[in-house]
């Protein structure tokens, strides 16, 4: 009975938002309010961060590290689409990143020469420079997704180890091409081993974390739609997904391409943050580094990916003094997590601000629930800890 009342009250219902019903009618937030709350929180955080940087609370070095954190968050969240949600194991994420980085920075360098935008304009942020940067990021994303299609269609016919190896090889090919294309073809594109220099420093805290917010939002909305459900279905049981009418080739390629696109955007931001691009940076180790973030955070958890990207980016910086032992610490952390929490730190838990607010509205707290005992919904992810 209550169920019907609920549906009437709330014609628009989230695809899989919060828990809907537990005996009595729950108070819930309407969708626009949920989005508004999240948007406000993101904006407040962005403004707060910017104020701290402007006010000198965060120094220049720290803000650069912060930008790196944001870039790695995008990389981890995007790789999570392919590993956590689709359930494949691509090892060539750095390849997509480098496609994006080169695509974006070459576009911006050439266009700014043609349009007469100086390096200073990027720092002060004139509208034209800003448009160029956004355009460059999209170009970078498109370059990466083209690479994603090229590799995805043949590679996704393979499974597990084979896919890992073929994507690994592909990323190496991209790296070698970036290294040698100038000499072989005679273009002046990537600068070869010397690196691509003269990239304006367009990445800023606001730009990077604005992109983080957009990427997280788009990933979330894609996953909570028919496309995302098809992708998750393939992960959970590919044979059943096919028998249920899911075009597995299409959805695998889709997940792969979206993942590559976001990696390309991150590459573009990376170029603007570092200022110099060398093919050697985008080697095998970079791919592994990103994969480690996803595995550590919990496959299929966006928050997990973001958290571990943050920790694993800040940790080496914090441990600069012991730089010799950094990788050992890295490895030990990984081994420990894999032994004691093989599903990753957060498992597949994902954070939802509106869910928490709804719980407070309904006075539905974990401790209260434990006392009730009878209600064995067990859907809250806290339970699998």
């Amino acid at each position, binding site marked *: 009975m209550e*169920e019907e009342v609920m*549906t009437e009250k709330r*014609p*628009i*219902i*989230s*695809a*899989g938002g919060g*828990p*809907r*019903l537990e005996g009595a009618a729950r108070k819930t937030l309407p*969708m626009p309010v949920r*989005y508004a709350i999240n948007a406000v929180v993101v904006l407040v955080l962005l403004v707060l961060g910017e104020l701290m940087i402007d006010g000198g609370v965060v120094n220049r070095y720290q803000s650069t590290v912060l930008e790196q954190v944001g870039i790695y968050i995008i990389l981890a969240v995007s790789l999570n689409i392919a590993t956590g949600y689709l359930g494949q194991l691509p090892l060539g994420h750095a390849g997509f990143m480098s496609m994006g980085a080169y695509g974006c920075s070459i576009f911006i360098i050439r266009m700014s020469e043609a349009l007469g935008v100086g390096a200073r304009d990027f720092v002060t942020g004139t509208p034209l420079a800003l448009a160029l940067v956004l355009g460059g990021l999209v170009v970078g994303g498109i370059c990466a997704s083209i690479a994603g299609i090229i590799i995805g269609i043949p590679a996704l016919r393979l499974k597990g180890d084979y896919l890992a190896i073929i994507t690994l090889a592909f990323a190496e090919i991209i790296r070698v091409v970036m290294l040698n294309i100038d000499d072989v073809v005679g273009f002046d594109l990537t600068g070869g081993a010397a690196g691509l220099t003269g990239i304006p420093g367009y990445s800023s805290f606001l730009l990077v974390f604005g992109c983080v917010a957009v990427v997280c939002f*788009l990933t979330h*909305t*894609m996953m909570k*739609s*028919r*496309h*995302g*459900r*098809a992708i*998750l*279905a393939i*992960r*959970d*049981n590919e*044979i*059943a*997904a*096919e*028998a*249920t*009418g*899911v*075009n*597995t080739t299409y959805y695998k390629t*889709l997940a792969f391409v979206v993942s590559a696109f976001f990696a390309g955007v991150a590459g573009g931001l990376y170029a603007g943050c570092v200022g110099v691009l060398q093919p050697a940076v985008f080697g095998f180790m970079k791919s592994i580094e990103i994969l480690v973030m996803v595995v550590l955070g919990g496959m*299929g958890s966006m928050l997990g990916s973001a958290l571990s990207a943050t920790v694993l980016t800040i940790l080496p910086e914090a441990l600069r003094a012991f730089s010799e032992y950094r990788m050992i610490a890295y490895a030990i952390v990984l081994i420990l997590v894999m032994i004691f929490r093989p599903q990753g730190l957060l498992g*597949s838990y994902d954070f939802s601000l509106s869910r928490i607010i709804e719980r407070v509205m309904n006075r539905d707290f974990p401790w209260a629930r434990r006392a009730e005992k009878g209600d064995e*919904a*067990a*859907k809250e992810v806290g339970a699998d800890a």
Partner: protein
Amino acid sequence: MPSEKSAKKRRPVLVQVETPNLIPERDLGTIPVLQAEHLGIDFGGLTAVDDFNIAMGRTEISGLIGPNGAGKTTIFNLLTNVYRPTRGTVLIDGYDTAGKSVAEVNRMGIARTFQNIRLFSKMTVEENVLVGFGNTMKTHLISDMLRLPGHWKQEAEFHDRALELLDIFDMRKFADTQAGNLPYGAQRRLEILRALATGPKVLLLDEPAAGMNPAETEELMENIQKIRDELQIAILLIEHDMSLVMGVCEVVGVLDYGKIIAKGTPEQIQNDPRVIEAYLGKQEVK
């Protein structure tokens, strides 16, 4: 006449199938909804299935029985193109399934369940059903990603439809439960519902009563008939539980060593000496 009509209807049927919760007015033409002719497959030198023929009416419930290893599940895999047949053809509504992918065959009108349950166990019950609705939903990726109004309209519509579908087996209360956490019987029921969400014309059930107690089997029998009556679809089932097969099927085929050895009404089958032989062995020693 019927061929002309279905030829016109072909495109929409492939793309968008009838929704299970609206009782459809189906064209009860003379073309069998599912037809297999001389279907066979060899694995290496072994002939797993040979010369399998079937022609199912629109609202027929048929059963396929046979000893373990007789090739029953292989036939399901052949009908759904999981295995490519070595010989013979499969026609759905008169259209050949040769060269179609498993997903395309599903969209042509065959949905199935599995002997060992294959749910999307980390997704909720409702999401499992929504995956089945996936091909009926039409929003574009961009519209979904940007949460345009079309997305909300469609999600709301299919949320209601999914709950309605869950009502068939009284599973609305489980809508938000993770499929993997469901009790065994409910998992089997969910698999059937997920198959129904794809809007099939033929439902293939692979041992639906496996692991169920007599009371649950009884309920399942009623449900199978209810599905047929309400949705007007054909059902082909594999089952070891004789009470279910004999109670619910109109036609029963007996399979042994990949070949149909007997076919008929449940009564005919029960008294067929060849069937008794296949199950119990011959009386006299050669």
